[in-house]
């Protein structure tokens, strides 16, 4: 069963790789979805460069959101930072409640078109899952273990580094995974403000009534989401196994 799972993921990865390197090979498959002899494969920008851009934007936004959210969670779980909990929670919640499309609309006048407003929208949208998971992980360390860490003479920083973060790592990673997957999907919206993401393919398809484009963009994003999710799950599983055995 596990072998089968691994085999189909490897196939997916290979398939995606070949498709991005030589999309023309797949033209016959997509051709029936086009009308009036429109091109079967999007050729406005190369699919490979759009994909790499899309990934880079998602990666940067997730990294920045994770760093800030984790930092806030660490801060509010220290005795001295406990008073910042309501503020941090409000910030993370606001980031999640405010629709990315609205963020784009509001920030374009300030930041201009392109990657910058998209990065900001993804960054804000990605804060909440990491923050909540890190908070749950850090405050979920059993009282006996925290007490023993203090009682052994660890400093606050040593407790965080040696005990709390390692024990909370799988839960924190699950938060980062959620944030990354949501960002990956949401980044498509960035194309409405001219960010170079896979959303460009979908939008081009919608504007020209070309279902083949819509499907290509959607499939690439879906394949990336599955692969990234699985990679995270694999690492989480390894971490959990290390804690349990």
């Amino acid at each position: 069963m596990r072998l089968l799972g691994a085999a189909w993921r490897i196939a997916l990865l290979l398939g995606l790789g070949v498709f991005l390197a030589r999309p023309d090979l797949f033209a016959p498959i997509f051709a029936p979805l086009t009308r009036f002899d429109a091109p079967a494969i999007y050729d406005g920008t190369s699919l490979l460069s759009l994909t790499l851009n899309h990934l880079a934007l998602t990666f940067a936004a997730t990294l920045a959101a994770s760093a800030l959210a984790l930092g806030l969670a660490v801060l509010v779980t220290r005795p001295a930072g406990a008073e910042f909990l309501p503020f941090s929670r409000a910030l993370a919640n606001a980031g999640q409640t405010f629709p990315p499309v609205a963020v784009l609309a509001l920030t374009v006048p300030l930041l201009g078109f392109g990657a910058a407003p998209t990065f900001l929208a993804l960054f804000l949208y990605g804060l909440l899952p990491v923050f909540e998971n890190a908070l749950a992980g850090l405050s979920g360390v059993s009282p006996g273990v925290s007490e023993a860490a203090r009682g052994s003479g660890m400093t606050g920083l040593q407790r965080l580094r040696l005990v709390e973060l390692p024990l909370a790592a799988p839960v924190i990673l699950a938060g980062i995974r959620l944030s990354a997957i949501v960002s990956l999907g949401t980044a498509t919206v960035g194309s409405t403000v001219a960010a170079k993401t896979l959303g460009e393919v979908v939008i081009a398809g919608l504007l020209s009534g070309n279902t083949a484009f819509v499907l290509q963009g959607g499939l690439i994003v879906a394949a990336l989401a599955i692969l990234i999710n699985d990679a995270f799950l694999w690492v989480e599983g390894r971490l959990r196994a290390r804690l349990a055995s």
Partner: protein
Amino acid sequence: MIRVENLTKRYGDSPPVVDDLSMEVAAGEICAVVGTSGSGKTTLLRMINRLVEPSAGRVLIAGENTRGLRGHELRRRIGYVIQGHGLFPHWSVAQNIGTVPRLLGWKPAEIKARVDELLGLFGMEPAAFRDRRPAELSGGQQQRVGVARALAARPDLLLMDEPFGALDPVIRGRAQDELAAVQARLGTTIMLVTHDMEEAVRLGHRIAVMDGGRLLQCASPAEMMARPATPFVEALVGGAERPFRLLSLERVEAAVEAGEADGPPIDAEASLRDALSACLWSGRDALPVEREGRRIGRVTLAALRHRAAPGGAGRAA
């Protein structure tokens, strides 16, 4: 070794949790702190290693005021064992035991040697246990690793807060005997909090009784049973159980006298409580006493009866 002077802890406006408490524990002694739950035992212990800062009073360890040290540095010098052991689940047994030596910057080879030594001391084969995770140990083994971790950096003082509370009675008895043996060998001074009077009598050279944050009495078990300071102490040291507890404090050799007796002998190292039990069970008035296989005399039911009463023997201490 350790001296507590007028120690007080207050939270807000409520009555103090520990109230003007003074006591002393001599080097190499086990002091058992007993009291009902909520009487301030844990708070007292945590003020000694400054997990809780006292509201007033001071603590001297080997004559040195603990206020002069930084909290975490103080705690690296004092062993600390808590109920349910608090082992780090993501670390191996060896890493757990080596916690404080690592914080103190010992060399890896020194730490490894110390870990193996301690595992041996607690009857755990180093090769078999070193690399296990806490989850792969029985409750009794986890508890032993917890004590070994507390002893790793050779502290002169060990604080234990209901260390055997999570163990079942059989394992608990064995763990208590083992602690007594290890303590006798290392000479560590121990303050052990328990709400189990049986455990206090079994392990404590002295017993401190707390109630409502105050120290009611601090004395040897025998003296406490013979002369309880207050009705509360008297109730705690246990009405009906008292004669048997008194007898359990002494070995047969203390009551041996010249003379003959019939039937199977009892060892001079056994407790007087065991001797009484043997007399009653076999219906005899006297038992022959042996030491290392040689007859050294007898112990009589009359002598046992005498010693089971307050002031019965030379145990004024």
